[in-house]
């Protein structure tokens, strides 16, 4: 029989202990993360905000403010600012009636221009031949956009009643009503059927793929506790406590590192922290700059202020994704300039007919200025990723995690790139590995 105190027996017991406790830790962590998955996004946002804001708090402390007061002041200021920004943006979002008007004008303008293109395609030129070929692909797309924009029967009733009552006050409403009636005569470009009939039977897509309702995932037990509160309430809490943390969490993590890797871990952590911090803060500053540019220049060429705010917000958020993001802003600006039927530009030579050229030029110039001036100045080479890699990562992020996957895929890949490069260099420098 084996001696229970022998070295071999102790080693065997240790191995079993480590294996069982590791398994338990992995399973428990996995379960908790899965159970609280709706809370993960607010937690990540809170952590990111704290991370990005650290230099501001450090600046306040250097100015002689006590730590707790600095954090309290900054968090209060930031949450108030966020609240007002949210309320401001929310107020800019068109209400139901404005949405009906926008959809009606958009549908009318889109089909006017598209029918112009169809007429061009029927001429006997090389361009017309190319257009005819292209339109085989764009007909279904335009049909789908029409189905998306078209007002449902009950919406039509509300819209008509409102326009009827308003048309004597301003010619704009009479024009709108005219657009609406013309929209009702529209035919499908693919099948030639009447669009209004399809709307009557509730068709919203020509591919007739059944629309699925919102994802009805089962409610998790832990979430029930938070049932009465918004999950986003956790964000400021995380934000506050991480700002107050003073590097304790990092020290605890470093304490897990074996002695041989201690200095390597310290310097890697420090360098990665510096690089990622500059990248994230730079991205926020750059997005704010892009938002400001849209907000200043779009109203100048005649865009409505509300629309400029909305386009600015979307373009600023999309700007996080290199190559792909900037095109979102350009497409939005061009699309809106194509559907708008009246403008009030401070520049007298801009009118609805040539707005699209000036709008495209403005959006492109903003992006060029961003890429040639802001990005190199603020971000340096942190985002030096190959375009194919960017495209692949964004698509993969979207497939795996949807919208948030698309948005966060590039910051995550930049973090991974910076971390891997730094750790690799440090391991070589400390002669822990040799290649």
């Amino acid at each position, binding site marked *: 029989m084996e001696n229970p105190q022998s070295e071999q027996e102790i080693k065997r017991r240790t191995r079993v202990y480590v294996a069982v406790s590791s398994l338990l830790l992995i399973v428990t962590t996995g379960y908790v993360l899965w159970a609280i998955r709706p809370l993960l996004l607010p937690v990540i946002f809170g952590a990111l905000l704290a991370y990005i804001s650290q230099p501001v708090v450090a600046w306040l402390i250097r100015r002689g403010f006590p730590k707790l007061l600095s954090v309290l002041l900054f968090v209060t200021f930031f949450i108030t600012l966020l609240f007002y920004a949210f309320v401001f943006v929310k107020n800019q979002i068109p209400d139901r009636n404005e949405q009906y008007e926008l959809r009606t004008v958009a549908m009318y303008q889109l089909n006017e221009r598209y029918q112009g293109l169809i007429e061009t395609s029927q001429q006997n030129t090389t361009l017309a031949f190319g257009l005819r070929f292209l339109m085989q692909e764009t007909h279904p797309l335009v049909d789908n956009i029409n189905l998306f924009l078209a007002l449902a029967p009950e919406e039509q009733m509300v819209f008509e009643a409102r326009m009827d009552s308003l048309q004597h006050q301003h010619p704009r409403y009479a024009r709108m009503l005219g657009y609406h009636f013309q929209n009702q005569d529209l035919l499908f470009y693919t099948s030639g059927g009447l669009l209004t009939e399809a709307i009557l039977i509730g068709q919203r897509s020509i591919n007739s793929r059944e629309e699925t309702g919102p994802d009805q995932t089962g409610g998790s037990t832990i979430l029930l506790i938070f049932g009465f509160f918004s999950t986003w309430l956790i964000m400021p809490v995380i934000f506050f406590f991480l700002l107050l943390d003073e590097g304790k969490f990092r020290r*605890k993590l*470093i*304490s897990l590192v074996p002695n041989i890797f201690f200095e390597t871990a310290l310097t890697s952590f420090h360098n990665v922290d510096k690089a990622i911090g500059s990248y994230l803060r730079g991205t926020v500053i750059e997005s704010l700059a892009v938002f400001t540019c849209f907000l200043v220049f779009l109203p100048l060429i005649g865009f409505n202020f509300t629309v400029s705010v909305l386009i600015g917000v979307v373009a600023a958020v999309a700007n996080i994704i290199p190559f792909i993001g900037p095109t979102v802003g350009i497409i939005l600006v061009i699309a809106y300039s194509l559907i708008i039927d009246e403008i009030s530009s401070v520049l007298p030579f801009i009118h609805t007919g040539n707005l699209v050229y000036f709008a495209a030029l403005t959006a492109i110039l903003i992006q060029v200025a961003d890429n040639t001036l802001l990005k190199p100045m603020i971000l340096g080479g942190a985002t030096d990723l190959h375009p194919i890699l960017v495209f692949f990562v964004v698509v993969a992020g979207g497939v795996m995690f949807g919208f948030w996957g698309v948005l966060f895929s590039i910051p995550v890949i930049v973090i991974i790139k910076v971390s891997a490069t730094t750790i690799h260099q440090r391991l070589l420098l400390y*002669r822990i590995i040799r290649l």
Partner: protein
Amino acid sequence: MKPFWSDLGKLISSKTSQEEDFIKNVQLFTDLTRRERLKVERLMHVREYQAGEYIFHKGQPGAAFYVIRSGLVRIVTPGEPPILLAEVNPGEVIGELAILDETPRSASALTAEHATTMAIFKGDFDAFMLSEPVIAAKIYRRLAIVIGNRLKATNAMLQKQAAKQPETRPA
């Protein structure tokens, strides 16, 4: 694996550091007030070493300096066996030049017995210098005294050696 699990306990526990009394007597921190010592303590990483374990190696970039908390540490140059340069006791500091520049370590530090150290990372100390310049100035002043004392000791040792071997001196 074993140190990982014992260290994981530290991650979960919220026990505060008990090093405050000790820090008071460390040569580098003797000028600091209690409040200032507490601030410095927040920068420290407590590390434990088995006997015969290297704290750092000669030639590696210096990223941190260490206060010996317990145990005996030998400063050696690599070789078989290593050549002993000095022995460092609790309360003394090693690798302190790391906070001045990033030149490679001039010697290795090897534990003679089970030892505990309190390490301060250069990056953290640089940031600390910006937020707490008064405390940093006091530490730098003490560091200058420590280095000055070591220089004096080295000069005295060289003079003693030179006095012992007058015949080997060139004419």
